[in-house]
């Protein structure tokens, strides 16, 4: 992906060709050497060499893991809790984390690299003392924060982050403690704060908004929030988006608004819920409030297609808005559709379908 074509790059000089052929021979020899020999440190080093050149060579990663499994102290040695065997295990794991860190800088989206890290950490947890294992996971959180700082849209990093957080929540902070309540080690508040930080740094961070949408329901449950607190949360989130309306061309904020509105729908699941005791009146009130806020944008900006799209979308999906001429008139709908067609002709097929739905609804032919 993303490699430009250079004119005439297909022809190589004889010298360049010869060099490439030698490289190929060395590369293939390395592969054979790894395949033939035993599970030794020498082979481990050979795999390092090869993987540095081609981190996508998954079979070699598999082989490396087999070698490591042989190099780890045996069960008996580990059971004796000798500090030597513990150190050996830690050293081996740390070395692999180091290797993958440097490779991840060059190939931040390589599935095989992330996989190897998952494996190394899980092995570490199985074989190391709890404190050492936990320290490794904390290091992972740091790594993933750095990577998201470099590319906040890297979904591998976000997935890994959720995994690391889950592990840190699970592994006891005090090694000798009996099973503690999940509550005391939950990182939901911290992760929620992290998304706030990312959004404030860059509003267009769809990945951060997405993560936030998953955290909020969980957060409310963990805080044991009552109905008032839940409403407060929703109001705050709407307020955040209202601020962001100053730049209505940012699509991320509209998707998040869609999420918030979605929590008002009767079809919303419990696990994505914000308000639990929503009445029909509540829904009506929120819908009208939001429609009005959005309509206000049109006073300053008439050429933003998202505004019309969202207005039409909500008009068709919320019972309290359908046919509610005090908030949305049929003329409004017709005007918005026409503006949308003009501003966003690519999606004309969709606007036609929406128009058909609206016509049918106004004729009373389509049920809710």
């Amino acid at each position: 992906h993303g490699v430009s074509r250079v004119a005439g790059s297909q022809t190589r000089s004889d010298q360049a060709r010869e060099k490439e052929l030698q490289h190929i021979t060395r590369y293939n020899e390395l592969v054979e050497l790894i395949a033939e020999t035993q599970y030794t440190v020498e082979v481990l080093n050979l795999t390092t060499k090869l993987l540095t050149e081609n981190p996508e060579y998954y079979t070699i990663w598999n082989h490396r893991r087999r070698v490591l499994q042989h190099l780890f102290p045996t069960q008996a040695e580990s059971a004796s809790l000798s500090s030597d065997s513990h150190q050996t295990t830690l050293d081996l794991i740390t070395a692999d984390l180091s290797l993958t860190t440097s490779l991840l800088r060059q190939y931040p989206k390589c599935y095989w690299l992330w996989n190897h890290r998952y494996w190394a950490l899980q092995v570490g947890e199985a074989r190391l003392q709890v404190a050492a294992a936990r320290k490794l996971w904390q290091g992972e959180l740091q790594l993933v924060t750095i990577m998201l700082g470099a590319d906040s849209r890297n979904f591998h990093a976000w997935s890994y982050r959720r995994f690391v957080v889950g592990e840190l929540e699970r592994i006891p902070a005090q090694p000798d403690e009996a099973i503690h309540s999940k509550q005391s080690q939950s990182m939901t508040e911290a992760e929620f704060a992290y998304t706030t930080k990312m959004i404030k740094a860059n509003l267009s961070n769809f990945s951060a908004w997405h993560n936030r949408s998953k955290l909020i329901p969980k957060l409310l449950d963990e805080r044991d929030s009552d109905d008032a607190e839940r409403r407060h949360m929703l109001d705050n989130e709407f307020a955040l988006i209202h601020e962001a309306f100053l730049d209505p061309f940012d699509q991320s904020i509209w998707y998040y608004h869609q999420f918030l509105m979605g929590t008002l729908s009767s079809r919303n699941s419990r696990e994505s819920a914000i308000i639990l005791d929503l009445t029909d009146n509540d829904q009506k009130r929120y819908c009208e409030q939001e429609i009005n806020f959005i309509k206000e944008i049109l006073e300053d900006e008439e050429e933003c297609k998202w505004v019309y799209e969202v207005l039409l979308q909500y008009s068709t999906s919320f019972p309290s808005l359908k046919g509610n001429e005090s908030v949305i008139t049929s003329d409004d709908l017709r005007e918005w559709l026409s503006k949308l067609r003009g501003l966003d002709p690519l999606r004309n097929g969709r606007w036609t379908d929406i128009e058909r739905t609206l016509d049918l609804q106004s004729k009373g032919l389509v049920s809710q």
Partner: protein
Amino acid sequence: MSLVSGPGRGGGSDSALPQELQLFVDKHVRYIQSLDKRKDELEYWLTEHLRLNGLYWGLTALHLLGHPDALPRNEVVDFVLSCLHDSGGFGAAPGHDAHMLYTVSAVQILATLDAFDDLEARVEGGRRKVAQFIANLQDAKSGTFAGDEWAECDTRFLYGALNALSLLGHMDLIDVDKAVDHVKTCANFDGGYGTGPGAESHAGQIFTCVGALSIAGRLDLVDRDKLGGWLSERQLKNGGLNGRPEKKEDVCYSWWVASSLAMIDRLHWIDQSKLTAFILSCQDPELGGLADRPGDMVDVFHTHFGIAGLSLLKFPGLAEIDPI
């Protein structure tokens, strides 16, 4: 599109079309044929871990272009079977470990070439063996699928498993309902799906999840208007499609996004002629093949998905493709 003269003539050198609307069929065929002859290029060896995928992409593209025999059938079958392990799984190339990704490509190639009998002839109970390898990768608790013994789980593998097993006629070996349940956990507020529970919607994952639901007969679980809306927004002003909000266009999304839209009957929600023009602009008119976007290096992955996209959009002269 009524621009091309007659069936079976997707472009070629004698078309009266302006260059930007032609599909350079012959060039692409030759490009694909040349791929296995580049053993003197380091890149060839550095991509050996993708060989079976590459073969699937190349072969499928050739079939769509109307040149199914451009790669010799028996050689292809021989190569595919040389990647088979005792476990029933296929590796990317001979000597490479078995993995779901390559097993799926292998099954797809064998299905395309009508070569399941060849498999049975060489390996007794071959079909069942391969199916069992795939089925064994299902996680009993979550319903999702791992790629191999090293346990990476991803909805890509779930889709691959359902795809391959339906081709092999062995869906009975897995718990389809559990797999469907897992897909449900990957659903997001925007109607899309991610790599796993909690993950952001991504066009590639949407394709795998909707494809899986389609094969399992559970498209009822998809919010078609919501997802259709999200997918239609992938189209950018230049006609190309991206994979998620604020990202760049890439010709491979011509397949992931378009076929997802097709599966939920919303393909008309994007501008098809603009997309067609974009895909065509990704061709390398001299060397053949397609790139991720105009002016970039071509590769067989993008060649395949660009052509598949064109077929879905009913570009004349191309064989018809099923969105799943």
